[in-house]
């Protein structure tokens, strides 16, 4: 291992981390702007041209804000919780390929930090760590609202992680590898979204729950639990939770783009590898807009229904998706996968709507 390689890693890591931090700052602005446009408002436009300095103003405000720790809180865990939440969010993208190989000053550089052969496993493992931060934050705050938020989130994340993990299996089966680079390369002729329409759906719903986004923003549930697990947090500690949530949004969008939407592949990417990261960014922004759009449109689903939805609807569908994908791969007839999975989805929707109607017609709570 040469020192040059180590420097390359360090520089790439820094680029990813700072890219994510900047992305987080501007995602907040993007979200506020997009929400405002949907809601016939203008959104932030005072700080800098088009409000572009708004994230800076927010950061300055949060840094200089007084940090309060409730007197009866468990101080060590209270301080540790936001850190546990934010670090997995920052390192999750380490295995993601941002582009092919580019030539710079006569040397070849690959546009990814590491090509881990168990990349997908790494992502699922790291993604589940942050739930500890949230639960501990809820517990350590010594606040009942925070406690309820923490408990809700642990239950929610554990339930949805299963569906999330199962939806990863589709691309893995199609590729025959767990390496993210392999998955992207296999999608060069055709994106996996074609073979995995149900997989994308399950992944997307589970992701929304995983990153606590509307309509699954149970742990925060502003209208019910004031601010959920971070009720007692202020200043930079609060900002860390906020940061974790938004960075995870970026991360899961990037993962979705990589697993199902061809990663960095798009037009002319063969000829100019430098276009790879740009295409990936475009796909991520499109997916992020989807998340924001959903938030602007849908009411929040109730907590007990969320659990029922996760276990009774999403989980069986994810299993069906794995089964039909495996079947298609074994038989060598990939076109079977979308057909069968869509049939499974329609059957599931029919069954759910039947049971819903029955529930509402029954004169009980």
């Amino acid at each position, binding site marked *: 291992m040469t020192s040059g390689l180590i420097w390359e890693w360090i520089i790439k890591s820094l680029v990813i981390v700072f890219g994510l931090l900047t992305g987080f700052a501007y995602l907040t602005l993007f979200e506020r702007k997009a929400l405002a446009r949907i809601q*016939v408002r203008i959104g932030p436009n005072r700080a800098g041209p088009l409000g572009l300095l708004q994230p800076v103003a927010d950061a300055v405000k949060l840094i200089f804000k007084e940090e309060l720790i409730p007197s*009866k809180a468990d101080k060590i865990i209270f301080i540790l919780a936001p850190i546990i939440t934010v670090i997995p969010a920052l390192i999750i993208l380490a295995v993601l390929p941002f582009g092919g190989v580019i030539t710079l000053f006569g040397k070849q550089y690959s546009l990814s930090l590491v090509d881990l052969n168990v990349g997908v496993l790494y992502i699922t493992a790291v993604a589940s760590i942050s739930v500890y931060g949230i639960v501990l934050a809820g517990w350590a705050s010594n606040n009942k609202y925070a406690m309820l938020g923490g408990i809700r989130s642990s239950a929610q994340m554990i339930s949805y992680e299963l569906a999330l993990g199962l939806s990863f299996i589709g691309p893995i089966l199609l590729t025959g590898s767990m390496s993210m680079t392999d998955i992207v390369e296999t999608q060069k002729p055709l994106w996996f979204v074609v073979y995995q329409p149900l997989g994308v759906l399950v992944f997307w719903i589970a992701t929304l729950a995983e990153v606590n986004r509307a309509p699954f923003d149970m742990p925060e549930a502003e209208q019910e*639990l*004031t601010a959920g697990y971070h009720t007692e947090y202020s200043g930079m500690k609060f900002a860390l939770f906020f940061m974790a949530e938004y960075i995870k949004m970026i991360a899961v969008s990037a993962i979705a783009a990589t697993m199902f939407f061809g990663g960095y592949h798009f037009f002319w990417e063969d000829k100019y590898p430098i276009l790879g990261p740009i295409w990936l960014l475009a796909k991520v922004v499109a997916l992020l807009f989807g998340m924001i759009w959903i*938030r*602007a449109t849908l*009411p929040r689903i109730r907590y007990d229904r969320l659990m029922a939805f996760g276990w009774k609807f999403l989980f069986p569908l994810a299993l069906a998706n794995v089964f039909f994908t495996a079947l298609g791969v074994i038989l060598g007839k990939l076109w079977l996968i979308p057909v069968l999975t869509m049939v499974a989805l329609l059957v599931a929707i029919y069954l759910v709507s039947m049971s*819903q109607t029955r*529930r509402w017609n029954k004169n009980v709570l």
Partner: protein
Amino acid sequence: MESFEVTENMLDGISHLVSEQAIKGETVLLNMGPQHPSTHGVLRLLLELDGEQVINCIPDIGFLHTGIEKNMEAKTYEKAAVMTDRLDYLNTVGNNLVYCLAIEKLIDLDVPPRAQALRVILVELQRIASHLVWLGTHALDLAAMSVFLYCFRERELILDILEMVGGQRMMATCIRPGGLWRDVPPAFDETVRYFLKVFPARIKEYEDMLTKNPLFLERTKKIGILSKEDAIRWGITGPILRASGVAHDLRKVKPYSGYEQYDFEIPTHTDSDTYARYLVRMEEMRQSLRIIQQALDTCPEGAVRSNDRKYVPPPRAEIGVSMEALIHHFKLWTEGFIPPKGAVYAAVESPRGELGVYLESDGSPKPYRVHWRTPSFVNLQVLPLLAKGHLVADLVALIGTVDVVLGDVDR
């Protein structure tokens, strides 16, 4: 954890309201409000929870007590009208109307037909505005945040009309004993007609977002069922009563201000749940539009204020030329008018239910006693009944569906 243990002072004076388990510390006592985003002002709810299930819900009111009833006793009849706006700040015109109706009943004052029609238009516009705030906040409580801003966009149109009429967006006191403060400006007709033209499409827009949205149905169907018998027993009025299947609306039952001339329906529903109350209120907005349309089309020309100089100040123009007018003006604005001794009760259908005012005169220029029968106060009583057995998440939907205005509750 320490805070989960029940301390003595936490249950001080309320231990008879919570269950045995709460005293033993087996259930969680949670304070919701008075500073909470979903309690629509400063309502405090003491919740007894088993997990997230509400076992007991004890509303605690009085955080917005303003002493308006008592204060009104210190003002002359006409000047006290200004305070009525501050009770239910989403139904300001309706508050003015019921107060003026009571005075008019007390002194048997005539109201010109034009003023009657304009009062109906203003009150119905106010009803729509109030329902828009209800819809927006109700949807926001369920986290459908865009609906809130769409509703406020339309409410803005109504507030513009009210500003045009009374010079103030919310608390204009444009309804006075004997008619209106002054005639509406010439652009009024056109502006209201524009509103009538655009608003049906906007209602459809809200309905597109909510009425058949599975997530919205999930949050409102079979939530907070209030049976017909319970509703009557608790004295509930307004959309909540009508959603429980009782077609009781003071505009039909005891028409005032010429409501008997207009053709409109009272929407009712039999499901008695939060969704039924949503449907009833949405339909009420449409019916209000019908009433406004008719009132606008049939609105006669003429005076907008009674000519009874003993009770109604003369127009400004007369003061310069008529000595009598000057004396009336002076007397009315210094001493005020003196109604005969007696007590009256007048009631109107506010957006929240029966809004009544009891007025007692002891033969002085100031009311001896003013008592308000406010719908929010009465309707809030059923919240514990509705909430029992539901989840905390449903509680915010229930506060929204009861549609309380804390200014109206505490007064």
